[in-house]
């Protein structure tokens, strides 16, 4: 559905060249939810704007829904854009128009008659769950409702691709989840390809099938979300993954735990996929004469499996403790024994 080959975008400022996007290769399949994550300034905003021609590449080719976005212009480009929906961090609704009129806007651009527009608008209002708010103005809506209008507006011309530019970054966690659920819902109902950019790993974890990590205009790592969570390669990726799966583990916190439990051992377990769902602790207690005390932990669901970490205090005969740790290792759970504020395996 989307293919980028060696795409580079450089800006000229007064005295220097800014390389916003550097030699990016990307391939996104139809029906996929693809996430691009990076901190601000990583070039992800530029990258997503290259996909609908709001930015033109300095080098490289961009194909979206069988159109060469880097070659077309004028009427053809406008036609292509009608088939690519886009939603924004700050919603970008027209405040002078009601919900209904806002959703109708892209249909006016496409040149549909008033009657056709009304039919589609009513359908979309139902799809995004805004019944009863048709005549409201954006200023009368909450952030989540505004983004629903944004989504309905982006879907009006039945696009093949939906671009999400930090679509949940201005929303609170609960609203974020409801908007993400809606995105998954339309992805499944309409078979829509979704490309989203974000700086929150939570968003990637919750709905994306694949993810690309961006740093300094380059894609440093990409793959299935679960694989990336399981085995992050780059330090940037590890930072993002830790946002989600890591229980709080500052050296201060570990130091406190060690002081609190002078006897026995404190270990950190990292669960991935199937191992996250197996009754590991029960098995250990049954097999060995040790006490097992869960200090803190966090397990998150991703598209493809669960991942998580847990801090545990193991106490008992030294021999038994060593045996139990060995057993856990055999279960493909990563074990790290904490000795001082640092972690040793």
């Amino acid at each position: 559905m989307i293919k980028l080959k060696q795409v580079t975008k450089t800006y000229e400022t007064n005295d220097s060249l800014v390389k916003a996007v550097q030699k990016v290769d990307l391939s996104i399949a139809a029906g996929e939810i693809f996430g691009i994550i990076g901190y601000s300034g990583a070039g992800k905003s530029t990258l997503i704007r290259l996909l609908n021609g709001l930015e033109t590449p300095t080098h490289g080719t961009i194909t979206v829904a069988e159109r060469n976005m880097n070659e077309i212009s004028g009427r053809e480009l406008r036609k292509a854009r009608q088939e690519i929906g886009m939603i924004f961090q700050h919603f970008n609704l027209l405040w002078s128009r009601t919900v209904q009129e806002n959703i109708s806007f892209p249909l006016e651009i496409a040149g549909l008659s008033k009657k056709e527009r009304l039919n589609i608008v009513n359908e979309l209002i139902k799809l995004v769950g805004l019944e009863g708010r048709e005549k409201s103005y954006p200023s009368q809506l909450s952030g989540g409702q505004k983004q629903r209008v944004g989504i309905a507006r982006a879907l009006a011309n039945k696009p093949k691709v939906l671009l999400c530019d930090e679509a949940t970054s201005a929303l609170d966690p609960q609203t974020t989840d409801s908007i993400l659920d809606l995105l998954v819902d339309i992805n499944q109902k309409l078979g829509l390809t979704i490309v989203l950019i974000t700086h929150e790993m939570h968003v990637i974890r919750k709905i994306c099938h694949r993810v690309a990590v961006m740093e300094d205009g380059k894609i440093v790592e990409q793959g299935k979300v679960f694989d990336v969570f399981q085995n992050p390669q780059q330090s940037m990726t590890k930072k993002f993954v830790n946002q989600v799966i890591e229980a709080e583990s500052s050296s201060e916190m570990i130091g406190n735990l060690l002081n609190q439990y002078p006897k026995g051992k404190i270990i950190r377990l990292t669960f991935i996929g199937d191992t996250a769902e197996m009754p590991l602790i029960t098995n250990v207690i049954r097999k060995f004469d040790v006490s097992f005390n869960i200090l803190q932990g966090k397990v998150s669901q991703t598209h493809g499996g669960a991942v998580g970490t847990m801090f545990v205090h193991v106490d008992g005969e030294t021999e038994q403790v060593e045996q139990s740790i060995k057993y856990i290792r055999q279960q493909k759970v990563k074990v790290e024994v904490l000795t001082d504020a640092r972690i040793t395996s």
Partner: protein
Amino acid sequence: MQELLPNVKWNKVWEATVETIYMTSISVVATFVLGIILGLLLFLTSKGNIYENKIIHAIVAATVNIFRSIPFIILIILLIPFTKVIVGSMIGENAALPALIIGAAPFYARMVEIALREIDKGVIEAAKAMGAKTSTIIWKVLLPESMPALVSGITVTAIALVGYTAMAGFVGAGGLGNLAFLEGYQRFQYDYTFITTIFILIIVFLIQFAGDYVTSKIDKR
């Protein structure tokens, strides 16, 4: 009433009021249209915008600045040859119109430009992302989204124009300013000066009231 205002002839006042309203309304309508065109031109050709063009922007900006800087009373005199060609006369309400419009439109154009710059860039970007043509962006995004500011701007301009018509009256354009000059100033009938002031104030208040009302009605932010 007769004792308070011994010299005032009401039919004269009424006639002058109608002339003032006539000059103001025609010039406000023309200023609104011309100012929006110039303002759009200023906005669209500015840096980073749809029709970014340094040369056109510089020419329009210079013209606007020059005409905005000339004191109105001098502008009228300066435009006498031009007015004679266009209107065919230097006397009467119509003779004031070219100067009124040329004096007010650049002033309003700057206000239009500011109003357009206040529009969230994201909204324009969203319209582009939907595949909107530039004309669609102008008619369906730029103008509707800035309408409250455009209306409050034309309100301020209209009030300035009432003042301009009075000045134009001093050089033969008719209206309340003319009445105040001929009857009040030159013939020392102070009651005429007073009553024309009252009528001008009423016109100004009505314009302000109407402008505020319309602005609050259309502002949905």
